[in-house]
Structures are given as C-alpha cells and as structure tokens.
C-alpha cells in the first residue's frame, strides 16, 4: 500500500541538500507553506536558490530563511513589499542575488520544466531590461524573447486537502503557484490541512494528480491562520 504521508515536517524535508533549488508556493500569504519554510530553517540546508513569487514578509517564513543566511539567490517577480525589509537589506548589501522575472514568465517557465518544454518564445519582456541579453525572434511580425524552464530539486507547497496517493485540492486563491511547482520539482512536499481517505476527493475535482507529489504532511489549519480564515 502506497502512502506518501509523512508524520513530521522534518521527515517531509529530509534530503534538501546545500545548494539545492527550492520552489516555494504562495502569492503573499495565500498558499505560502509557512510551516515547511520554517522547517527548512530547522533542517539547515544553505546556499539555496529560492523560486517564489515574493521574497518574504517581516521576519517569518521566507524572510526568516533569508535572515538566517541560507539563501544565495532568489528568483521571483515581486520582492518589494511593504514589509520586505529583510530581503531589501540583503539585496542592498549585495549579499543575495536576485533574478527578477515577470510573473507570467515565472509561472510559464516553471510549467515548462514540468511539461518537458526546453524553452519557449514569449512577447512578455521584449525590449525591457529584464530581457537584456536574451535571444529574440520575430514571429508573425511580432517580437518574442526566448525563455528557459526553471527546474527545482524541491517544491514546498500548501494545499487544502490531500490523500495518501498525493492528490491535492487547494483553497480559493491559495492555489496560485502550487500546481505548476509540483510539476517542476524532483521532490514535491505538500502541507495539507486535511487528509482524506482515498477516493474521497472526486476525481473530477483533483487539481494536482498524485504523480506530482512525493510527500504530504498534515498541518492543522489553526496554526496557519495569519488572519481571517472563513470556512
């Protein structure tokens, strides 16, 4: 009997090596697997490349990982936030590398890795600083930029429900990067608020099929409510 459920965050994060590329889901707080990121601090891996839409808030989660000096490089679309002072300081001091990527290119490059695409042409970014040095091509009279897939060793994502085969459903706008990151990483770790019996999730409603998930760990919802969860 196959079960991908592990019983601790520590077990879920076993094997993250120094220098690994780690994707972290979420758009701001929605979908951010805060407990897994905190587990990564405890786990100890350093020299990490982090792929995430943002670069952390205040001093918890991703910001705490940055503050602990574990991150060599961030690949993201929107590092600047009202409370991104940890990232801001590291960046200004030249202590962290930033690869700034338009959000759609970020999502599409992650999907490309998960879908076996070696690279693709997009109009987004053409003629801007973010496309500097990149290959361009005219296609049907419009200019496109070549973008490459972003692969990861681990993806840490947050879902709402999961089962022992790794099938996941998300909640509202917390879905965001979870499904594509799950496809792009060698090992995907999902925190879920609820574990369901096999078959309890309608096969029509599965958002991430279990093939894309290697480990699940249950995190009670209470622990993750920054504010205002409404059932």
């Amino acid at each position, binding site marked *: 009997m196959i079960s991908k459920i592990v019983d601790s965050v520590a077990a879920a994060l076993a094997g993250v090596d120094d220098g690994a590329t780690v994707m972290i889901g979420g*758009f701001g707080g929605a979908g951010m697997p805060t407990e897994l990121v905190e587990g990564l601090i405890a786990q100890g891996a350093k020299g990490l490349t982090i792929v995430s839409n943002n670069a952390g808030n205040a001093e918890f989660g991703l910001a705490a990982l940055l503050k602990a000096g574990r991150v060599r490089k961030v690949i993201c*679309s*929107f590092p600047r936030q009202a409370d991104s002072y940890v990232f801001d300081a590291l*960046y200004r001091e030249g202590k962290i590398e930033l690869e700034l990527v338009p*959000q759609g290119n*970020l*999502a599409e490059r992650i999907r490309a890795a998960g879908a076996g695409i070696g690279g693709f042409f997009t109009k987004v970014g053409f003629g801007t600083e973010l496309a500097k040095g990149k290959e361009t091509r005219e296609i049907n009279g419009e200019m496109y930029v070549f973008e490459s897939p972003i692969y990861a060793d681990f993806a840490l994502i947050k879902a709402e429900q999961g089962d022992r085969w790794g099938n996941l459903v998300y909640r509202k706008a917390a879905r965001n990067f979870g499904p594509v990151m799950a496809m792009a990483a060698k090992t995907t770790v999902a925190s879920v608020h609820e574990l369901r019996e096999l078959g309890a999730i309608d096969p029509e409603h599965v958002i991430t099929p279990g093939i894309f998930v290697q480990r699940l760990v249950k995190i009670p919802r209470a622990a993750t409510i920054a504010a205002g969860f409404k059932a």
Partner: protein
Amino acid sequence: MSYTKLNREQLAARVARDIHEGMYVNLGIGLPTLVANHFPANVEVFLQSENGLLGMGAAPAKGNEDFDLVNAGKQPVTLLAGGSFFHSADSFAMMRAGHLDVAVLGAFQVAANGDLANWHTGNPADIPAVGGAMDLAVGAKQTWVMMEHFTKDGVSKLVERCSYPITGVRCVKRIYTDLAVIDIVSDQFVLRETVAGLSAAQLSELSGVSFF
C-alpha cells in the same frame, strides 16, 4: 480660463464609462483598482486578478476577510457567483494571449509611441519588482493607462520617449489622466477630451508634448 483636475474617484468613473457589459478586465494595483467602484449596478463586467481569480467582487465587509481570497495587491476581496479559481500558469495564459479585453495600468511615464514605464524608477538603490505588469502590458487586447497627468513634482508623465526603464514596447492604446483622455495612434498622442476649461494648446504646453 481656469480648469479643475478630476479627483481620483472622478477619474475612476471616467475610465469605468468606457468599460462595457461583458468585457473581461484586469485592473492594476493602485489607482486602477478604484475603477471597480464605478460600474453601474447590474452591469456585468468580468474582473480578473493575476493570482488566479475571474469574477472578482467587491471588498468583503469588515470582519469577513478571507486571506485565501485576495487580489493582486494582496487585499481581501470576494468572488461573484459565476466566478472561478485557477492556477498561476492558467491565469497568465489568460492575461498573455489576448483573452482580456482591457488591462488598466498605472504608469510613471507613457511615450508617444505607446511605450509604457511603470515598474521601476531606474534608481539603482530601489528594489526592483515587476509582478504581472509586463504580462498585462503586452498581453491584453487593449492596454489603457490611468494616471495623474503630472508627478508630485509637476513633471509631465506624457513624454516623447520614456526615460524610466520600460514595461512594454508600443503597448499603450489609451491614456486617462486627471486632465485628459488621449489615444495613441501611429506613434502619436491624439487628444480625445480635456477637463472643462483646459484647451488642447494649454495641455500641450503644460505637458511638453504635441497632440494630434
């Protein structure tokens, strides 16, 4: 003659007037967000949010916030009946392939050729952040800019050529400011309307650019 600038809500109402029932629209962070308050009741406009929502509704009542249901600015919102959730790659597919009728974006500068600058001041000390701005700028059927005509220092945001790093090349179709509505046609600003009491000549002089 004297004239009065539109205030933020008046400007939002002006933009809303050009958004018709059935249109799919993305309202950028900041000023454009206000446009949502000015659609007539019972007129169905479909608001998309880059983080994976279609059919976005108004802000929830105080105490009813759900932080899994936020907009691109990470503010709590609601979802209308008939709305849907999807992941980021699907959301940006929607934004990048011309499925949205209109993207309304803020701007630092718009050039006569339609170049848009709205993501970075170019100051090396500033932390750069782009989010979905570049995707929206080139992906929607039409990109509209909604902005104050002048910076806080009184400098025109309409320019012959952007000095700030650009967000997209020749992507702006129409500009709504607190003074005027301007189309971009064949690499030229074409003045469509001004606030009462402001002549085209005056606006041209104030802006330091030519209108056609």
